[in-house]
């Protein structure tokens, strides 16, 4: 591609946009709407993932230590537990600390009065990196000498894992469908511009323009439409997110939901919107011009 052709291609790309102004407007609006939903869903999934991760970390595995071991020996068991791959944190508690917590939890409950520290075992409270691997990790814990019993809530771990998986699959499906919708709309806009200029294209072919040269103005048109849609969607997403986060922060009932500030999402969001705009614009126009060129070559 010669440098002196770049100006021509850009000019033709812009001309294509205005040739079917309303259709271009519709393409940008649909792209903005789709990317806005895609972006909102991505941010929601991101925030929910953080929330689930935080909740996940509260799902602990309790490893009880052989009562015949001294505190120093029991602490060595804790060190060995810490060496396991999936262990995020292993916190040692003596039987005295365990009793204090037990009494505090059952304050005023006469049935538990008279429980002595000697009735309890030293224990290690284990937080896992990935609760989906809980069953495997529990097996490894049992293999550590000095661990005599373990309590773990598999159901809760599975619940979190399922929730994350469902959210991820649902978001992927929604993102794919909406990107496809944007792609089709842009493809259609470019197709209309092409049919409008089919005589010009025939003349271009007749005088010896290469297929690449004929295609490029339409790809530029699709690219500009896609990027315009992406830019507008990004700006709207930012405004909308900040507005909603501010409103949610005012509500006491939704205190548990802590959303990350948009500034923290800036780079991934710019990349996501940019890539999506590029994808729907370039792929949308490329597919329609390819079909058109193949059809007109016959």
């Amino acid at each position, binding site marked *: 591609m010669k440098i*002196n052709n770049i100006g021509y291609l850009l000019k033709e790309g812009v001309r294509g946009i205005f040739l079917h102004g309303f259709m271009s407007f519709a393409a940008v609006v649909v792209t903005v709407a789709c990317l806005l939903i895609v972006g909102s869903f991505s941010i929601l999934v991101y925030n929910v993932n953080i929330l689930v991760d935080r909740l996940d970390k509260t799902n602990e595995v309790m490893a009880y230590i052989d009562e015949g071991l001294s505190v120093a020996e029991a602490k060595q068991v804790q060190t060995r537990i810490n060496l396991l791959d999936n262990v995020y944190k292993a916190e040692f508690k003596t039987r005295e600390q365990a009793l204090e917590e037990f009494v505090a939890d059952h304050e005023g409950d006469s049935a538990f009065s008279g429980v002595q520290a000697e009735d309890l075992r030293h224990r290690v409270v284990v937080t896992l990196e990935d609760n989906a691997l809980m069953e495997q990790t529990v097996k490894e814990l049992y293999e550590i000498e000095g661990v005599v019993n373990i309590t773990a809530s598999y159901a809760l771990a599975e619940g979190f894992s399922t929730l994350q998986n469902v959210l991820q699959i649902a978001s992927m499906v929604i993102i794919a469908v909406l990107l496809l919708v944007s792609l089709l709309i842009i493809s259609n806009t470019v197709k209309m511009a092409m049919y409008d200029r089919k005589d010009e294209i025939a003349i*271009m072919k*007749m*005088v*010896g323009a290469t*297929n690449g040269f004929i295609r490029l103005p339409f790809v530029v048109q699709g690219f500009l439409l896609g990027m315009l849609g992406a830019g507008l969607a990004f700006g709207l997403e930012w405004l909308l997110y900040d507005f909603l986060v501010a409103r949610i922060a005012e509500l006491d009932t939704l205190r548990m939901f802590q959303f990350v500030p948009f500034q923290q999402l800036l780079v991934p969001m710019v990349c996501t919107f940019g890539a999506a705009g590029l994808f729907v614009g370039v792929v949308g126009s490329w597919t329609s011009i390819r079909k058109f060129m193949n059809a007109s070559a016959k």
Partner: protein
Amino acid sequence: MIEFKKVKKSYIEGNKALRGISMQIEDGEFCFLVGPSGSGKSTIIKLITGELKPTSGSVHVNGYSLERIRKREIPYLRRTVGVVFQDFRLIDNMTVYENVAFAMRVVGARTQEIRDRVPYVLDLVGLETKSRRHPGELSGGEQQRLAIARALVNNPSTIIADEPTGNLDPARSMEIMTLLQEINNLGTTMLVVTHEQNLVEHFSNRVITIEDGLITSDRMDGHYVYEDQ
């Protein structure tokens, strides 16, 4: 040079458009191609411009072997062959200048080259004073001259004119044919498809007659053999 050797062309529907044609048109030659509708003239033009491939036989145009030409080479073949049509095929929303410049632009010519070449070619076809007009403001003869300028601007070694005078009155037809003859005198190979017996005989160039997919006459004396029904 254009060379056909035992060229046959059948369409998918089974219609045999060409049934074994051999001919050679040398560089710088002026040749008329005459014959009734459906005789295979358009198929010959499409074979020369790479729109079609022969079913059998070989076609050589300006150094390209068209029976085995690659798709990506076709634009470069077309830059050596300018084409003029009966219906002009101009872009109505572009000026005379832009129509010609467009043909240079789309093959990647530099702006300065375009600025130098387009006025020269418009002058050659007598449209230098109408460069800012649109095709709709021109007469039929002027529109055809514009189409010739566009075919000429990329300096092709061959020009193919498909019924270039079909939409013009006799006086304008003579003007256009004279212009094509002048361009040929400058060294461009010319292949003109026409039905107009008086023009063919007036210019006394080579005449190839084609009927039912076969060459029935090839004469150097400008003699029009085929009688239009």
